[in-house]
């Protein structure tokens, strides 16, 4: 009897945890998918967190001023691409050190958005709020036990993220350009000899990756929270980089990793309120501990793109 009661409670419990997990996976997963694209072309963008913050803030401002969160998401995408173009100009065209430039971008993103937020929106503890997109509830399907809530009763931005993820999985599976992308990241000399411009492919991949990272920032800030705070991503951009390793540079693996992280994050929130003997700070650290362990087990088998962070020089240049 008691066991049955616990079971019922735990199914409902896990249903809400899974639903929250999907919600929390949206932003970090999108950022990781973006980072995957530029890493597969051989460009490491450690400034992912900075891109998310800058684009997310721009998206928030657009959403707040116009009242349209969808415009905010679009602005996030465009600003992400713009920041990506600047980053690519530095690391792909000028061949500046990718690690240091990326760190500079990450630090700049935190500081600059904090500055802008303070100047424009006061930067107080009760930030102004912008409207967020609603949820779509699909009748009947949403009542499926355990999974219904997480798959068929989600925020519209979650469906958008799932849609883009599926699009990416299909596109990268079948496309000729995937081969070019991987050739540039694995064997740039061969790609060059085959007549593809390594610089152009890396540039486009970096812009595309940053566009998705920008969208990721906007998904979180514009699509889910509706407000901005200093360093609101709280290092999610770096977790996304870890997820790329965990997912072994494949979109499906990355989506899975993002879901795992999201569910852990959701559990963490719930455990914090439970009165257990384990201090709640442990649960705050838990997603990072698990990510670290998961990456540790993933890294040995995973092989990063051979040309990652190595600038390409043509012989004749």
């Amino acid at each position: 009897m008691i066991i049955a009661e616990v079971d019922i409670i735990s199914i409902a419990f896990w249903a809400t945890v899974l639903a929250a997990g999907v919600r929390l996976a949206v932003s970090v997963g999108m950022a990781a998918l973006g980072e995957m694209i530029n890493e597969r072309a051989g460009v490491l963008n450690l400034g992912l967190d900075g891109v998310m913050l800058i684009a997310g803030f721009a998206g928030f401002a657009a959403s707040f001023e116009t009242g349209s969160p969808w415009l905010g998401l679009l602005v996030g995408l465009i600003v992400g691409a713009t920041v990506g173009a600047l980053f690519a100009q530095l690391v792909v065209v000028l061949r500046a050190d990718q690690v240091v430039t990326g760190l500079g971008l990450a630090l700049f993103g935190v500081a600059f958005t904090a500055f802008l937020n303070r100047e424009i929106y006061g930067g107080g503890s009760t930030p102004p709020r912008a409207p967020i997109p609603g949820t779509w509830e699909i009748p009947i399907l949403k009542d499926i036990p355990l999974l219904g809530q997480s798959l068929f009763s989600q925020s519209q931005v979650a469906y958008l993220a799932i849609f883009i993820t599926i699009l990416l999985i299909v596109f990268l599976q079948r496309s000729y350009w995937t081969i070019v992308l991987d050739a540039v990241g694995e064997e740039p000399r061969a790609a060059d000899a085959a007549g593809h411009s390594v610089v152009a492919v890396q540039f486009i991949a970096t812009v595309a990756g940053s566009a998705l990272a920008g969208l990721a920032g906007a998904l979180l800030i514009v699509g889910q929270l509706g407000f901005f705070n200093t360093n609101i991503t709280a290092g999610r951009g770096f977790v996304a980089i870890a997820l790329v390793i965990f997912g072994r540079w494949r979109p499906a693996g990355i989506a899975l990793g993002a879901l795992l992280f999201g569910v852990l994050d959701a559990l963490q929130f719930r455990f914090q309120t439970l009165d257990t003997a384990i201090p709640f700070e442990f649960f705050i650290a838990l997603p990072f501990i698990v990510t670290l362990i998961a990456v540790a087990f993933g890294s040995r088998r995973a092989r990063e793109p051979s040309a990652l962070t190595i600038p390409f020089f043509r012989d004749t240049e």
Partner: protein
Amino acid sequence: MRDSPNATSTPTELTTSGSHPGSTLLRRGLQSGTLLLAGSVVAALLVGAILILWVGENPLYVYWVILTQSLFEASGWRDTLILATPLGIIGIGLAYAFRAGVWNIGAEGQLIVGAITAIAVVSVMQGFPGAVIIVAGLLAGMAGGALWGAIAAFLHVRFAVNAVIATLLMVFIAEPLLNWVVRVPLKDPATFLPQSRTVGNGALPDILGTDIHIGVLFLFMLVPFAAWVMSYTRFGYLIRAHGANRFAVYANESRPGRLPFMLLAMSGALAGAAGFIQLAGVQMRVGSGTAVGFGYTAIIVAILGRNRPIGVFFAAIGLSAMLVGAEAAQRSLGLPVALTQSIQAIVVIFVVAGEAIEQRIVRRESERIAAATAAQLNPGTPA
């Protein structure tokens, strides 16, 4: 021999470019890196000026306030030195790691854990004389920081986890650890705030005749020692060689992964030392003032110091002068700290961009000389 399309047309350029007096001065400036650094800082200050204008202040006046408050006043000098101490100590450890191509981004976490272990040891040793407590606290801080660095190092070396990711994720674990430690086991029962007891007898005394704590001396002793080790010892040579070509080092000199492990643990130990010095010299307690981002600012310090101990020293002084002055400007003019932090990040980006442009100039130059030499040696070679 390379096929360069303009190989035959360059012999005259070879002689002219070699003897041009202006270009040697330019080249000397480029080689020493000072021109690059100065240019990057000026460029970043110009961008900063735009931001200051936007806030509605006069950039020249703001920069004047920053300069006078940090360097032309006794209290400014004191604050600059005290702030430069943790930045410089962490920065030297990071410079060692970065020079070898090992990216320790998690000094913030190593500092936090160093401060925690230091306060734990200092708390139980209160009966001992001050000097004993200080030495024990320093060693405990270094051990704590080294441990945190070594965990990341273990994951990096044993499981091939990217060092950036390993060290950084350890920060996100250290932060909740700090919050728990000051909330439960090490909490000062006398207050409601989440903070530890004070260091008591473990507080660092001031240098005689000043109000600067002796922790500053640690930096002043560390800098020449670190510079000597880097330039004149086998260890320093291995670090530099590892940065240039790690496989050459692994083939001949050192077991793979050994040097990255040592460097992550060592830079962690220095971050932990900084954690203790900041605790016993300034904060007096572990609490909300412990994790204020020194570990991240020290990354900028190491990069601006171009991963050389002497350079790190001046970068630490310069950056902390900027921070101290900016804090004064914040008090008197209401300028946000985020503005200063933005300018610092822009400096970093400009320095790497400048470095890349510099390398491109050097590359172009050497290719032109190579092409010209080849053309002179083989005048009959078709273009």
